């Protein structure tokens, strides 16, 4: 690759560098073979695609990623191009549809893997080996391959073959026991938080391996456990268990600091946060309650000690004011207030509006739709905003351009039901 050989001659000059950077995405020229499906794998490869990698999403014929069959669907009408979670999770990827039951399909896949930098998969452990695609086999084909495997419980251990859904890993990581009301059953996370954080860990591991490989190392096989990624999300509570023997439990979102939670107000709920704590005394007059100036509430520890009394004193003022007004009043006094926003309010959020967080993409089947754009902004290497591919949309183009298949080759594979 000319781009890399230029770098090997030494760091480019500043002019040269900025010229290059303006047109480069951070992961330009990284090729990813993406065997993922559902959520955890696809969000990882969505990030890779957005930052510039060429992501070849291998979809098993005839139905492709099972997520295509899962709702909610655009306008509530089913169809492989209408699954909303699929449309979100697969932006910027190329779809290559292959029949992996057929040895010729597996051969095509192996040829793509031979030319790839990265393979990401989230099948049940052992499934890749059954397809003849275990790491040892692939590593023999491509010694520089970084293979990232994301699974519910990891590639080893007694629960390796356990079936896992989002609620299973949330439950078995301790997160669910900490969510909800102590008088009721533990509560699952609404969004698939364990899948998504594991997806990001998959991204981290993949990038770390690519970074290390630039120094001449080979590829490696990475094991990402969704259960363990969920455990990491409660790292401090877990450390306190391991070191102090304390077992935190769910407690209705009561926070140890006061005030540090949602309170009812005139038109909804305001997040009244007494921190950064050094700003409290200068802000307290906003509640128009002289008793809050009493010495017993002056220090954060006093507010914790007299929690119930304190909370009663702020409620009357809160009930007279709206959540957004309270938010801005608290923030203007340096306190980290917030408010309970509906999705409608999130869509209209002035901060999102100002930063252009939501962007429109055009899709041949479902038309223009608005989604979150870049997760964050690099000053020099832009995010690529794109739509999700139609099933098999890029099969011929990828096999032709990347593997050099002729129109005749492609015709034969098509007739044989391989592509």
């Amino acid at each position, binding site marked *: 690759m000319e781009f890399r050989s230029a770098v090997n001659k030494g760091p480019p000059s500043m002019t040269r560098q900025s010229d290059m950077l303006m047109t480069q995405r951070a992961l330009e020229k990284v090729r990813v073979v993406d065997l993922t499906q559902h959520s955890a794998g696809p969000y990882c490869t969505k990030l890779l695609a957005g930052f510039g990698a060429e992501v070849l999403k291998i979809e098993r014929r005839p139905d492709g990623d099972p997520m295509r069959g899962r709702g909610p669907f655009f306008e509530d009408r089913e169809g492989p191009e209408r699954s909303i979670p699929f449309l979100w999770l697969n932006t910027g990827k190329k779809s290559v549809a292959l029949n992996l039951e057929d040895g010729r399909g597996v051969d095509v896949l192996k040829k793509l893997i031979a030319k790839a930098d990265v393979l990401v998969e989230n099948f049940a452990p052992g499934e890749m080996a059954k397809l003849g695609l275990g790491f040892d086999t692939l590593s023999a084909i491509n010694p520089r391959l970084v293979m990232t495997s994301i699974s519910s419980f990891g590639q080893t251990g007694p629960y390796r073959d356990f079936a896992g859904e989002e609620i299973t890993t949330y439950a078995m990581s301790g997160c669910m026991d900490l969510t909800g009301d102590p008088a009721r059953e533990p509560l699952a996370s609404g969004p698939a*938080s364990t899948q998504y*954080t594991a997806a990001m*860990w998959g991204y981290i591991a993949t990038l*770390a391996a690519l970074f290390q490989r630039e120094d001449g190392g080979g590829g490696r096989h990475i094991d990402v456990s969704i259960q363990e990624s969920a455990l990491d999300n409660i790292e401090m509570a877990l450390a306190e268990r391991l070191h102090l023997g304390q077992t935190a439990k769910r407690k209705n979102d009561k926070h140890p600091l006061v005030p540090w939670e949602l309170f009812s107000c005139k038109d909804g709920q305001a997040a009244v946060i007494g921190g950064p704590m050094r700003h409290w005394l200068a802000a307290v007059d906003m509640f128009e309650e002289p008793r809050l100036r009493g010495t017993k509430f002056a220090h954060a520890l006093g507010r914790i000690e007299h929690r119930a009394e304190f909370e009663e004193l702020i409620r009357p003022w809160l009930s007279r004011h709206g959540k957004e007004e309270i938010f801005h009043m608290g923030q203007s006094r340096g*306190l980290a207030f917030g408010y309970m926003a*509906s999705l409608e309010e999130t869509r209209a959020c002035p901060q999102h509006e100002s930063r252009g967080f939501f962007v429109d993409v055009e899709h041949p089947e479902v038309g223009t739709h608005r989604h979150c754009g870049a997760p964050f902004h690099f000053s020099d290497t832009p995010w690529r905003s794109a739509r999700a591919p139609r099933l098999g949309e890029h099969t011929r183009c990828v096999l032709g351009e990347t593997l050099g298949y002729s129109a005749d080759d492609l015709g034969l594979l098509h007739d044989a039901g391989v592509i």
Partner: protein
Amino acid sequence: MSDLPLSGVRITDLTHYWSGPHAMRILGDLGADVIKIEFARRMCVLRGAFTKDKVYDRHPRWHQANRNKRSMTLDLKDPRQRGILDDLVRISDVVAENSRGGVMKALGAGYEDFKRIKPDIIMLSMPAYGSTGPWSTYAGVGGALEPTCGLQALTAYDKNDKRRRIKEADVTSGIMGACAVLTALYHRKRTGGGQWIDMSQLEILSHSLFGEHLLEFMMNGTQTLPLGNRHANYAPQGCYRCKGEDNWIVLTIRSDAEWQALCDVLRRPEMKNDTRFRTRESRRKNHDEIDKLIEAWTSGRDKREVMHVLQERGIAAGAVADLAEVADDAHLRARGYFQEARDGTPGLYPGVPISASGWDIRVRRRGPDLGGDNARVVTELLGRPVEDAPVLNENDVGTAFDNE
């Protein structure tokens, strides 16, 4: 140690609380030399409310959240100590901060300032609301960002229940912070160019936890969540009482075949042909009734036994674990998940959710003592005389709980 992927990468870490420090901990775990800059007169909130007997050095939460980092105390308003920061940046690959928008710039410690000192520096800025826009100067904590971004609207026992926290805000932003730095490091390794990263925690939570639900709202004007413990597509799914106090099992039936298997486990074969339950749609309609049938069976049984019986049939079932059970989990132990710190201090730590042959990712040291690395950083890294190291005067140490 030398096998770690980020070995040789140095980070000047100006973050505090949990989001930024979580990003830095991940990079430290991967081998980066993370130098955490602390302001002794107002320590991080994770160091607690007290200073007596240096109790601020002894919190396990601190040891965990700031493991694999060094601690250096600096007062950035003192010109001499500010010079030390500049010297550190000069030998760093990355600088990170998560203060409110504008704070670093006002201190003369923004990207443009550091870029002058170190042209290829990578700087991660991850304020709560981002570095631009009308709310950029606003402060944020997880308890406020979670409702404000819309995330909290999606979790509740049912549609009429109050919305509950999942408390994933700081860690999610932290993980994405690590993603961003790794991406920039890889890019720099190939091109030589550093850059600035503008990250808004408000946006990260939306993108990486509920982007699909925002898209549903944008496209259809509808909102599937919250659904309590039920699943949007599969039925039944729930959390069911087991034998003992506060013991629960979760299970998900993903196909009609799994439903049939569950009927066998429940010893209710006649339900297999019951039209009320035969399809996913009919099971969803009669979910309340199914929940009662399942709980009648689980409530007298041990949750782990139930989990194994169901898993043997291929059903996604898990015993709800509390932290004590997690710490004792046979699977995690068999995977070598928990670790001792290599610094000889007692106790076990959570591991990392990624592993690979050749990567020896360890808790090399627990979270550092306040200013514990001042002398070594100044002499060994900066080559300055030890007299230049900031001296920690215990009378000047203050906490995040103090009034100003």
